[in-house]
């Protein structure tokens, strides 16, 4: 948790929470008072620890969440790439992904604010799961919106949400993935805003969400910073994290932004191609930082996958958690100013990354994190002698997708998947 606002740098200015040219509050008028109320609560409880909010949050993150998570030296990867590779094990956080850092923070904040109901959107289901767990833990009623496509490809997480007592509302519109789920959650919020808190799942949306979610996630990079100095005796040469909306990315990078000697790589989903088919309204990738253009979506000015007229295109990734046409405004700013290097790998490289880590290290990573591991394989020579990769979540939820997608392709790192059909 960062309480040192001066470390946030010069780019945060004004009450609308702008990061350079990005950020802001582009929402229906009915939501503006709620954003103001949230901003006040964020400043009082999160930044100033009023009523001991931060103390309670840290205690719950430790006892319920399992923080700190380990920073593990990956011996076989280190050998394979002939350099020191460390893995930040956010997959070991309760729920199996970094998402709990933010979900527990926001649900606790909603409780401090006196809200009666929690809503959230989810793509891969990790954020929905974390929110459902946090809501059950803190005894708050909870509804989750999830695109129908994602409901179908992420069933284990749907079950987990329901086990924790959350309602799961499938969204049928458009490509029925994360973008549509966010639209629907915003509509619910615009109807019930007086008693409901919307737990946005990434560093996206209107101010104060991008800043607040980053602060809840910043613990990842703060722990890495301390752990790597203790274990390796110095800061890393580079830090690698996958980027969809950008919450694990910003959480991992935030503590390193002032350390100019540490290179920061945001790895996006290159999908099957980086081209956009504007006539069909489709991008066969989710590489917003690498290929997107500036615009306004879901409450913020940021980089987007869009056609020339301004219509948002449908994104694609083999990983539901990266499948989003937008990205956090702070990350857009850090890319624009050159502090963060945007990169991407395709679906095949991510699947190979998944199998490689599973085989070599005994860790089954989320398909999201597998993109970062795919980049490590392709570009380790560029990353220096001491590299940290954030394993943002575990891959149990992705097993069905991985088996199906692996069967379609000839992947060098894959096991023989036919055995699963016997």
């Amino acid at each position, binding site marked *: 948790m960062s309480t040192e606002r001066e470390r946030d740098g010069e780019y945060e200015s004004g009450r*609308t929470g702008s990061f350079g040219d990005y950020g802001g509050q582009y*929402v*229906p008028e*009915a939501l*503006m008072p709620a954003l103001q109320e949230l901003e006040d609560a964020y400043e009082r409880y999160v930044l100033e620890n009023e009523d001991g909010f931060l103390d309670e949050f840290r205690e719950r993150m430790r006892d319920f969440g399992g923080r700190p998570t380990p920073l593990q030296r990956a011996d076989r990867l280190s050998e394979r790439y002939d350099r020191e590779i460390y893995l930040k094990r956010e997959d070991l956080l309760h729920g199996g992904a970094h998402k709990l850092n933010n979900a527990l923070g926001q649900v606790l904040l909603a409780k401090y604010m006196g809200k009666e109901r929690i809503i959230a959107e989810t793509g891969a289901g990790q954020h929905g799961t974390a929110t459902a767990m946090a809501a059950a833990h803190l005894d708050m009623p909870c509804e989750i919106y999830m695109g129908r496509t994602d409901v179908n490809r992420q069933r284990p997480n749907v079950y987990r949400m329901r086990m924790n007592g959350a309602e799961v509302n499938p969204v049928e519109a458009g490509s029925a993935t994360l*973008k549509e789920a966010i639209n629907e959650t915003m509509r619910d919020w615009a109807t019930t805003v007086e008693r409901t808190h919307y737990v946005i799942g990434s560093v996206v949306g209107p101010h104060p969400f991008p800043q607040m979610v980053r602060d809840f996630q910043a613990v990842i990079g703060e722990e890495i910073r301390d752990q790597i100095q203790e274990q390796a005796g110095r800061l890393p040469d580079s830090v690698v994290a996958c980027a969809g909306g950008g919450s694990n990315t910003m959480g991992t990078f935030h503590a390193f932004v002032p350390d100019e000697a540490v290179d920061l790589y945001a790895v996006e989903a290159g999908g099957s191609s980086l081209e956009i088919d504007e006539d069909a309204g489709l991008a066969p990738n989710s590489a917003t930082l690498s290929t997107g253009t500036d*615009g306004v979506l879901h409450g913020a000015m940021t980089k987007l996958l869009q056609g020339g007229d*301004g219509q948002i295109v449908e994104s694609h990734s083999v990983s539901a958690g990266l499948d989003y046409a937008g990205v956090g405004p702070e990350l857009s700013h850090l890319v624009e100013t050159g502090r963060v290097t945007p990169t991407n790998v395709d679906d095949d490289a991510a699947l190979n990354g998944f199998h490689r880590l599973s085989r070599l290290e005994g860790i089954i990573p989320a398909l999201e994190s597998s993109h970062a591991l795919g980049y490590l394989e392709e570009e380790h020579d560029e990353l220096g002698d001491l590299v940290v990769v954030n394993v943002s979540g575990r891959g149990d939820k992705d097993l069905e997708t991985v088996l199906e997608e692996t069967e379609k392709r000839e992947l060098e790192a894959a096991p023989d998947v036919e055995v699963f059909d016997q």
Partner: protein
Amino acid sequence: MTDEARSENDAAYDSDVEAAIRENHPALVTYITAGDPSLEDTKAYVEALDRGGSDLIELGLPFSEPIAEGQTIQAAINRALAAGTTPDGFFELVEDLETEAPLLVMTYYNMILQYGSEADVRPFVERAAEAGLSGIIVPDLPAEESDPLREACDDNGLDLVFIIAPTTEGERLDSIMSQVSGFAYVQARLGTTGARANVSGATHDSLARLSEYDVPKAVGFGVSKGEHATEIVEAGADGVIVGSALIDIISSSETPGDAVDALEAKAAELKRGARRGADSLTVDPEERPEPEQP
């Protein structure tokens, strides 16, 4: 509006949008989505709404992520996008239209930013003015973020209409009401657009809260019948805004010709309803006529 245009326009009011509301009090504001199901049909529909008694007409320029809309308008937007509706096609439609009612464009901020060149509002506003539009409504642009668009609108003689929600209160309300041009779009209830069976109690509260501001107020979100219009005008509105109920007519009509007739009749019903509301404010309650059956 430019000074030259103003003098030509005989204006007791600063804008033709404000004039359309005040001079036709109680005013009927209608909305449909351009391109649903085609721009050609939209032309006929808009002209029908104009003949039926609309005093202002809002035309939706479809955006793929309409977060402020309910299912009815979202479906209309999807149909319009599937039909290939583009901003240039929209502006050409506006140039083709001949209506007595001034026209406003209702669209989302990204559509305005992306027109012409990247992330600049001016090309859109200049093209809107050239095409003959009188104002702009942007459901995802709160007053706090609106300076660039308002300046461009001022320079091009367009009104920028702001939405007042049931949650808008205190200093924000003062600030927004001081920036409103044309009229204040009063959101009758929390939530998204969509026809409802009843007028919300929030409408009465909102209009009471706004009564001290000398700005024309038109109420939308959920209005679908003549009797709603009556009730809303009785509660103090200067106009009523109807959208989803008109889209329902378009999507359920068997032929475009049927839709044209039904839209004209619906506009007339709504306008009569609004007039009854105004009349009843000046008539002894005992002598009020029975409401017309829908």
